[in-house]
């Protein structure tokens, strides 16, 4: 069954195939967990969010449409929403201490020898790394902490206009770097 593609495995999961489900878990748990851990910054909460994400895959597999995007993207979208919901439930503000500096979060360099099919996404990782620190910070707070521009302005003590300018500049920079690949 290892030769089956993600859409083929999802189709089997939709029929109640537990083995296919566990194969998908083995394929994508690392990515899903990395995202939930990034958002929640707590191993236990992150594992709960990862588990919830895969349980949603189990119960909603028939809703997945391969023509709309990859399964990994579908899973990560669910994982982000699940983790952000949990973050709001816990009423936790983003940590801004030195140890949680968003700059540090991007210093992990992925293994370039694996997942060659994701080279384009990996290049985005380096593009984020190349952002100015204040630009990287707004991307982190907006996308991985679920804060709006007004909330970012409040958390960082910046004028709202400054936040808007930096969000726009960071995204334009990332897009230009990403498209240049």
């Amino acid at each position, binding site marked *: 069954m290892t030769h089956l593609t993600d859409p083929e495995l999802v189709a089997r999961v939709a029929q*109640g195939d*537990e083995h296919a*489900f*566990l194969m998908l*878990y*083995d394929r994508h*748990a*690392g*990515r899903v*967990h*990395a*995202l939930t*851990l*990034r958002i929640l910054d707590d191993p236990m909460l*992150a*594992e709960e969010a*990862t*588990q919830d994400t*895969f*349980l949603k895959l*189990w119960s909603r597999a028939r809703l997945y449409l391969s023509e709309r*995007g990859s399964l*990994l*993207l579908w899973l*990560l*979208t669910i*994982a*982000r929403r699940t983790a952000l919901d949990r973050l709001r439930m816990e009423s936790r503000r983003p940590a801004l201490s030195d140890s949680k500096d968003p700059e540090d979060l991007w210093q*992990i*360099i*992925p*293994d370039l020898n694996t997942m060659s099919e*994701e080279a*384009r*996404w*990996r290049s*985005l*990782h380096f593009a*984020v790394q190349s952002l100015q620190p204040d630009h990287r910070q*707004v*991307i982190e707070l*907006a*996308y991985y902490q*679920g*804060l*709006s*521009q*007004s909330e*970012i302005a409040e958390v960082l003590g910046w004028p709202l206009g400054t936040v*808007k300018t930096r*969000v*726009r500049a*960071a*995204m*334009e920079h*990332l*897009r230009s770097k*990403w498209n240049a690949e």
Partner: protein
Amino acid sequence: MARDEHSFMRENIPAYALGALDAEDIRALEVHLQTCEACRAELSSYRQLSDSLLTAIPPKQPSAALRKRLQGRLPSAQKTTRPRVTWSLSQLAMGTAIALLLLLNLFSLMQMREIQRQQAGLLQQLHTNQFALSMLAYPSTQSFPIAAENLSGSVLLDRERNTVALVMWHLPELSEAQVYQIWLIEPDGQRVSAGLFRSQAGSSYTTEPVYSKRDISSFTGIGVTVEPAQGSQQPTGPGVFRVDF
């Protein structure tokens, strides 16, 4: 559309794709997107970027325990955690043997109770017979013959001890719905109930003691009628015999 408005909306598209646009700006942009193809194309481009941000994080494997927990939530694990009753052939044989033994015990218990009931009945009958026999031994006991169709016997009367005994031969057996009822007869002909009885099964004669709360000498006779199983206040059925003292 004013160029300034379009530029303003377009500037909000990166934040919208990132999910960081504030609620009031979202509504205005979504209205604008419905009529502006250029902005929809711009949004599509930024959406691809934001989607890719999801995968821009190096993978990190969760603990092995998570996989086990997840497996435990799947239907097959739910089924196996429920206690399943499976019977091997030997267990089935053992179960059958135990059930048979229990049935045998139950049957034996019922038989024993039936024997005990019969023994109690025989003992009672023996006491009754001994009672009638002892009455005959008393010199003051009077014996009155019972003269009735297909029935013979005696009424034993001991006025000193205020006791009466009926000894009846060939008393017919009654149905379950009927019973023999004894009546003591007062001088004015009124009847006072003195008990119910059935003929003794398996025996050619029936002995029945009669006890009276009142002085037996105040009665002038005794009789037996056939009545409904629960007895009657006054005689209603056919008379079996009557003896005057």
